């Protein structure tokens, strides 16, 4: 390693990041103070990295296309399905009270399965075990709608996952995945969302890759996208073979990345490009 190169590169990187500050108006990006020992000083929602128009769309409950999912699922909540003759409501009554806070604390440890489960999995466990109904497929409109609806009941509440006890090996596994470089482009989540957040890459400002807005309405896809589909997309883009949605690997990653956004308000349904 020739020190000359390092110095040059460092100088240029510094120049580039000064330009970024002016460009990206970092000062406008509001965040929350991270707890001690966290990787970031300031934890910033992906919302802050999007354009004024995209943010306005998210903020307007009437215009935000994600609310169509909330409305659809509010009906399904009451609908009896499966051999047990039950609806979600038969067990949980009003979602507005019974589901408050649930989506802010996912993934959660499941004593019976002896592993963490996320919201999509939890919904399908209810369907198969309590309703005796078919589980919904991952990425199906039904599952993503219901996930959005349940998480919306925590709107504005702080992300608060538990990472200790039996969760800790899962947290460590997620962290390891986060820092591992994958694919032909040899990039880790860290390469983009930790080291380079705030910088411009092609059509997007890179965010911290936070999960507080999921499922998120993507303007590009014109539909709500669940978190593990986003993970898949990021891995695919670096020409890596993504882990499978709802795999142990993505569950561990979901837990770890949720911790990186601890304290952020739940924004579901958020709007992104």
């Amino acid at each position, binding site marked *: 390693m*020739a020190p000359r*190169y390092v110095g040059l*590169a460092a100088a240029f990187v510094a120049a580039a990041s000064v330009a970024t500050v002016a460009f990206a108006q970092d000062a406008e990006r509001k965040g929350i103070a991270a707890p001690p020992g966290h990787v970031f000083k300031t934890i910033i929602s992906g919302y802050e990295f999007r354009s004024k128009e995209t943010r306005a769309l998210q903020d307007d409950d009437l215009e935000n296309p994600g609310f169509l999912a909330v409305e659809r699922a509010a009906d399904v909540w009451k609908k009896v399905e499966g051999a047990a003759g039950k609806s979600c409501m038969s067990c949980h009554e009003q979602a507005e009270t019974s589901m408050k806070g649930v989506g802010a604390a996912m993934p959660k440890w499941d004593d019976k399965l002896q592993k963490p489960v996320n919201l999509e999995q939890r919904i399908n466990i209810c369907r198969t075990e309590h309703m005796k109904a078919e589980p919904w497929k991952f990425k199906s409109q039904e599952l993503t709608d219901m996930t959005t609806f349940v998480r919306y009941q925590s709107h504005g509440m702080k992300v608060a996952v538990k990472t200790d006890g039996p969760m800790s090996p899962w947290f460590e596994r997620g962290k390891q995945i986060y820092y591992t470089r994958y694919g032909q482009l*040899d990039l880790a989540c860290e390469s983009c969302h930790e080291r380079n957040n705030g910088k*411009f*890459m092609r059509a997007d400002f890179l965010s911290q890759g936070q999960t507080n807005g999921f499922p998120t309405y993507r303007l590009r896809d014109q539909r709500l996208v669940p978190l593990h589909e986003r993970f898949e997309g990021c891995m695919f883009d670096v020409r890596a*073979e993504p882990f499978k949605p709802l795999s142990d690997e993505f569950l561990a990653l979901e837990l770890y990345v949720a911790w990186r956004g601890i304290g952020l308000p739940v924004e579901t349904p958020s709007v992104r490009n």
Partner: protein
Amino acid sequence: MRRSLAAAFALCLSVGGAYAQEPVKEPIKLDVINDSLPKSLTGTPGNAEAGKKVFLTRTLGNCLACHQITNLKSEEFHGEFGPSLDGVAGRYTEAQLRLIVADPKRIFTNTVMPAFFKNDGLSRVRPEFVGKSILTAAQVEDVIAFLKTLN
């Protein structure tokens, strides 16, 4: 645990399948001398015009995703990951530029810049790219010829 093991095997099988159809790729060896690659990868000089295309094309170099060049400002979507490449020909020799493009981690420790002429030592590469470098030797030489025009 069982399930993820099974998944791992399934993955091995599918990678094996891809291999069966194509000749086994040898890992690329680079003749690195003093943090540089003096020898042309093809034995012939590259073409700067072709190199500019490689530089701009998303499925090839996609260099603009991370770098800026002032006289390419008309192109949309510059990136800010890496430094501006204005005047880069004055900062490095051709041999140094060749190594920076072929395998930049040998020079910039832990950089996010991908190695464009490397085909092993990578993790979970999508089957269609296994054993392949991002650019061919000729494309690397073309990019080098283009970088040399950036005085």
